[in-house]
């Protein structure tokens, strides 16, 4: 193995300091009792209290959560179908257009996606609100789901599906009983990705939301445009906390599964 040099150690330390210090500072200052955010005046959790009193924020959070759950679920279903069609259905007319449409949202600037969907909704006279945000989020996040799922499908041993058919399963049963359980981790990561994208999205939601529905990012954006605010610091801390716990749990679970798998495989060779 190559030696880990001092230069490497310095790069890593500075790199991770750069990645994490800003968030750490944000978290620390969320406990600042001073209304002037940048001047430390002692520890306090009062901004968290105020945050939970703020109806507008709570409403926005509720809208965001609903949009995220529904749109990521729809995006997962559609994205998995699209991935399956691309990897498994072979040639069909319009396949090039299909794959182009699936992957284009990945590189499409959000302002353009937002603008085009808004023009569509106005064109067909659809009132903007929770429903239109869900449509928009489903459309742009299904691309991400299908990338994740199709990369798993490509490496999937096709003879497993053939074996299921051979043993009398209908094509749908083969998918339900064999393919889906095996690609489930990819489908779940796809869902989580779509969920996070929806939670975070500001630009597309701004275009496609109406006065009846404001999402949390829109709320945050309009608040921070005027400058740093202690309530937003508290809100950010909560969101950072949730993500950190989630990601660490997920990586511990997957690490454990991998370890157990490895141990089992070694034990099997000895029998």
């Amino acid at each position, binding site marked *: 193995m190559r030696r880990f040099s001092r230069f490497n150690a310095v790069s890593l330390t500075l790199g991770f300091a750069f*990645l994490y210090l800003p968030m750490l500072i944000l978290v620390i200052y969320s406990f600042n009792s001073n209304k002037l955010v940048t001047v430390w005046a002692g520890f306090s959790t009062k901004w968290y209290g105020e945050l939970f009193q703020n109806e507008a924020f709570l409403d926005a959070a509720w809208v965001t959560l609903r949009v995220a759950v529904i749109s990521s679920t729809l995006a997962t279903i559609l994205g998995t179908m699209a991935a399956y069609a691309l990897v498994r259905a072979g040639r069909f007319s319009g396949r090039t257009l299909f794959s182009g449409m699936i992957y284009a949202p990945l*590189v499409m600037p959000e302002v353009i996606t937002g603008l085009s969907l808004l023009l*569509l909704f106005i064109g067909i006279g659809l009132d903007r609100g929770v429903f239109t945000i869900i449509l928009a989020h489903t459309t742009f996040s299904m691309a991400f789901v299908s990338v994740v799922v199709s990369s798993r499908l490509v490496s999937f041993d096709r003879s497993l599906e053939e074996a299921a058919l051979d043993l009398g399963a209908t094509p749908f049963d083969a998918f339900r009983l064999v393919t889906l359980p095996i690609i489930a981790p990819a489908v779940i990561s796809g869902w989580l990705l779509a969920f996070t994208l929806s939670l*975070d999205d500001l630009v597309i939601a701004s275009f496609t939301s109406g006065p009846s529905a404001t999402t949390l990012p829109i709320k945050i954006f309009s608040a921070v445009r005027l400058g740093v605010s202690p309530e937003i610091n508290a809100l950010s801390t909560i969101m950072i906390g949730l993500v950190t716990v989630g990601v660490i749990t997920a990586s511990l679970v997957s690490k454990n599964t991998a370890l157990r798998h490895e141990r089992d495989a070694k034990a099997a060779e000895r029998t």
Partner: protein
Amino acid sequence: MQRIVLIAVPYFWLVALFLVPFLIVLKISLSDPALAIPPYAPTLDLAAGWQGFLEFLRALDLDNFVFLTEDDLYWKAYWSSLKIAFTATFITLLVGYPIAYAMARSAPEWRPTLLMLVILPFWTSFLIRVYAWMGILSSEGVLNQALMWLGLISDPLTILNTNIAVYIGIVYTYLPFMILPIYSGLERMDDSLIEAAEDLGASKLGAFWLVTFPLSVQGVIAGCFLVFIPTIGEFVIPSLLGGSETLMIGKVLWEEFFNNRDWPVASAVAIILLLILVIPIILFQRNEQKAREADQ
């Protein structure tokens, strides 16, 4: 039967919510602004049948695009977006490469944890990560406080609302996109290649430049495109961290649409932006294709 449903459902969804909206943008970019609802003309009158459709086609023109070329605000915005994206990508590469390199050289049992630490910010809200810098970079922010406390400066530096803040924001938020492809290239590299180079007389630095770096170029290119492409159309970073001097096309489009309510010009801006993006996207796909072929 099942196959048809499988294809048709996502296909139909994408045609309705991706292709059609895009065609609408294209169409409106060729229309004229009007003081009406919707604020553009002509509108397609389906009742008028084929004749109406021809009328409609005749009324479309390239006036908005001509307008874009005449007003140098737009030229400057496109040019400055490209410049900012290019510079920021380069800085991200300079920051990201040593980190990826160090990760690839760390002990194998540490790598998953380091990888998780790089990915973690991905899952954290983009908006919050940009916002975090507002409190740091403002004139009474953490950075200025620290520098003044250390006695390095006597007056606060103006960083927030300048292009420097925009660069910091871009490097910070897009850094994982740069690190991951470079790391995955370096991590797969066979250590004995460097030993072979050194055995054949190369110095440590020589071995890096002659062996390690050339083998990581594919990852570097991928990382650069992954930063460059989304940065061009970036909106959140310039509007939160940038100032009046910061001209980026995503922000111009937003303002054209929401503040000036000029839908045809906003649509034309979007179409040109897409045309500009096509080139790096094609180059990026070529690079990915090459990487896949090399893998086989």
